[in-house]
């Protein structure tokens, strides 16, 4: 019973972790580039195979003021497959995609686990900045955790029901 409760608790927490859409996610990069200070967030964290949200905040490098109107493009490509471009994607980020309206966001699809290269290009007027970083994408455990949670859920309910029936019987006996 104790073991079951632990497994159920871990699975429930796992479910929570995968279900939550963060307010931009975890910070991957924070760097000055050209006239901008650029911060890149990603969710979920750690990144897993499948869909991921990428969000970017652009600030004026001098004043720190948040800039809402730059055009931002993010490209992703797996490092191992750089030669034949498998899995490469380019996404134009948009303000409406993010819950935090100070950020611009978009969804990308990491097709395989491993090391990926992220390229960020920011345009605003005549100014352009380009940043590159690497990230590790892990195999997707979210779906199997989700399935296990829902498969174990009836077992949990059945255990509560058995407890309920035992209580009822003992109360009737008294």
């Amino acid at each position, binding site marked *: 019973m104790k073991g079951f409760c632990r497994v159920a608790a871990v699975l429930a*927490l*796992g479910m*929570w*972790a*995968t*279900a*939550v*859409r*963060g*307010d*931009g996610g*975890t*910070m991957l990069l*924070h760097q000055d580039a050209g006239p901008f*200070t650029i*911060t890149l967030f990603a*969710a*979920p*964290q750690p990144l897993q195979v499948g*869909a991921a949200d990428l969000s970017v*905040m652009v*600030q004026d490098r001098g*004043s*720190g*003021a*948040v800039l*809402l109107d730059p055009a931002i493009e993010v490209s992703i490509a797996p490092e191992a497959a750089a030669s034949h471009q498998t899995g490469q994607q380019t996404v134009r980020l948009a*303000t409406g995609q993010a*819950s*935090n*309206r*100070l950020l611009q966001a978009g969804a990308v699809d990491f097709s395989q686990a491993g090391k990926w290269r992220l390229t960020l290009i920011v345009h605003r007027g005549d100014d352009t900045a380009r940043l590159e970083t690497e990230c590790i994408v892990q195999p997707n455990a*979210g*779906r199997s955790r*989700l*399935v296990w949670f*829902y*498969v174990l*859920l*009836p077992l949990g*309910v*059945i255990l509560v*029901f058995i407890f*309920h*029936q035992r*209580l*009822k*019987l003992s*109360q009737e006996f008294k």
Partner: protein
Amino acid sequence: MADSVSQAVWSSWTFPFWASAGLIAVGLLYLRGWRKIRRTRPQLFPGWRAGCFLGGLLSLWIAIASPLDTLDGLLLVAHMTQHLILMSVVPPLLLLGAPAVPLLRALPRSALRDGLGPFFRAPLLHGVFRLLTHPVFAWLAMNISYLAWHVPAPYEFALRSPGWHEVEHACFLGTSLLFWFPVIQPWPSVQRGSRWAMLPYLVGADLVNTALAASLTFSPRVLYPSYAVVPRIFGMSALADQEAAGALMWVVGSIFFLVPLVMIATHLLSPQSQRAVAITATAKVSQRTVTAQQRQRFDLLRLPLVGALLRARYGRMLLQSAAFVIAVLVIADGFLGKPMAAMNLAGVLPWTYLRAFGVIALLVLGNMFCMSCPFMLPRELGHRLGWARFKWPRWLRSKWVAVALMILFFWSYEAFAFWDHPARTAWLLIAYFGAAFVVDTFFRGASFCKYVCPLGQFNFAASLLSPFTLEARSQATCERCTTHDCIAGNTQQRGCELQLYMPQKAGNMDCTLCMDCVKACPHDNIGLFAVSPVRDVLRDPVRSSIGRFSTRIDIAALSLVVVLSAFANAALMVAPVAARLTALSELLPKHEPLPLLGFVALGALLALVAASLFAVEFVGLLLSRLVAGKHANPLGRELFCRFSQALLPLGMAMWAAHLLFHLFTGWDTLGPVIHQAGGDFGWHSLPPAHWAMALPLLSANDMLSLQLLLLDAGVLLTLYLGWRMARQWAPHAGRAVLLLLPWATTVALAYAAGVWILLQPMEMRGVIMNS
């Protein structure tokens, strides 16, 4: 620029779907219970209590959906404001609503008595509750949780992990509910110890809060490293942000402790502290004024607008006419429109939309399809011809014809790929109209509905789980009635064509919700009542025009077909099964235009799948019978009939999971299809179809969660029904378990098959998908 940034911040709201739905559900539940209890204890439950509780729910929603939540990773002051709401605003407001009794009163009486009753009476749970709400435990729990989560290491951990961040918030909310419990003392809790103890209780908590707030305010360095590296907004440095957060906790946090402290002290020192006693006395008096009227069940026909529409003389005809027009349009587009199913009303409307809405309506309301049946109009026309002199042959008065037709329909759906050929769908509808017309032209009553229509039989079986049923409001009125208009009819209105005599009608089997009985009853004695969705299957009385379920093998077979077809229909659409079918069809010789041999092979395959599922079920039943032996006394037929019906929740859950997948994936196909059909019919005033599709309504994981949740609910309800039936046959619990176990194993196998099917990639038929 500053204005636009502020605007961006203020528009950073999110909509956490499940949390919002949960809060709305709790709010509605509370209001239902509050209204009930207010009739007996108006002084104890004035409007402000409901206002406080709903305000608490709203505050909770603001804490998790507002920009406070969006910005909590960037600004410590936003995060601390969120914590303050969770700990000091939400819990007192919820407790001021005295939620325990209203929430319990909102539940059905049987659920309260049989479901929760044993828990409430258990001494162990009483002890746990007393421990949790003991002032010492509650004070320690809240303050330890508060301090522990503000230590930099766990705080940073929560910031990095969304899952643990939720746990942190749940800790704050949960322990604060415990903390405020002795302070508020929500009715009907009993005061433990002296009320004066609340003064040091609150002062102590304020001291802890002050110490933590001061450490944040006066710290010379940033305590939480995350805030030192995230981009700073509003030109506020990380240290200034931390100081602001500390000041907020100190000042506002202290106010939340000190205001109740002052109020309690004033109350204790005032002579009006006896007021509560007076209120309790008044409440006791008004409790005696409970009338039978207030115990009435929920009757849909008593609702102002819906009830009036359902009872209106031409209400049903309006629905049927609308359905008839839609059916005619579907037939017309099937023949005249684009041959591609995804661009044709006949490819999309019946198979993607109507099936899903039909199943949802069955599970949420009742047999709405039969109520608005488009085939009723040709039936009426047939009747008007006056040739209906024959009675339906006695040897066909069962569900066997309909069962055979239903199997034929499911086979032909796959064999003729109706979903992929609009013209064939149109022919199917024409055949249906023709059959309804022919049968009811020559046979009396509603022979087509009662004995032939496979769609209707599917709905009859599924409606056994519907939460509404037509019943007499008062049996005494029925006993006094001499005319029996509900079945015999009168000059104004015909009676029930399906021969369901209201005083002996039990449940929804064979009921088309036509409302003829309601309109015919001269005593206005028939209502559409809310009932438990398991009641119909669980009881086995003698039913008017049906008899006992436990003797009707044909009805059991009908239920089994509904259940097995749910699995077969979904399985044939998943990639591994579809691939094997394709491989099989390539082995067979082709005869154009109809590959007859392939049809037969598909039929044989379907029969094999159904037969193996049936065999598993049968072996389970046989084992149940053998294991129970002489200690339980169900006949084999009774066991088969009733356990087959107990499978209905699992089958309907599978149907719902499957059909909702199609609906939610292709939810916005209808718009362009209507525009396309308009163009095909030459209605050029409609704008041309725009085929760029949006994304599915739910993400892949959310969709899978919903499907698995439905299947979980289905299997649990099926097992519950099985258990209750087993207890009816074997009063001793151990014997009931033995009786149930083999059958429950087959249920578990069916559940596993359902999970496997839902995990496979599914064909999306009749919808143009987003690339």
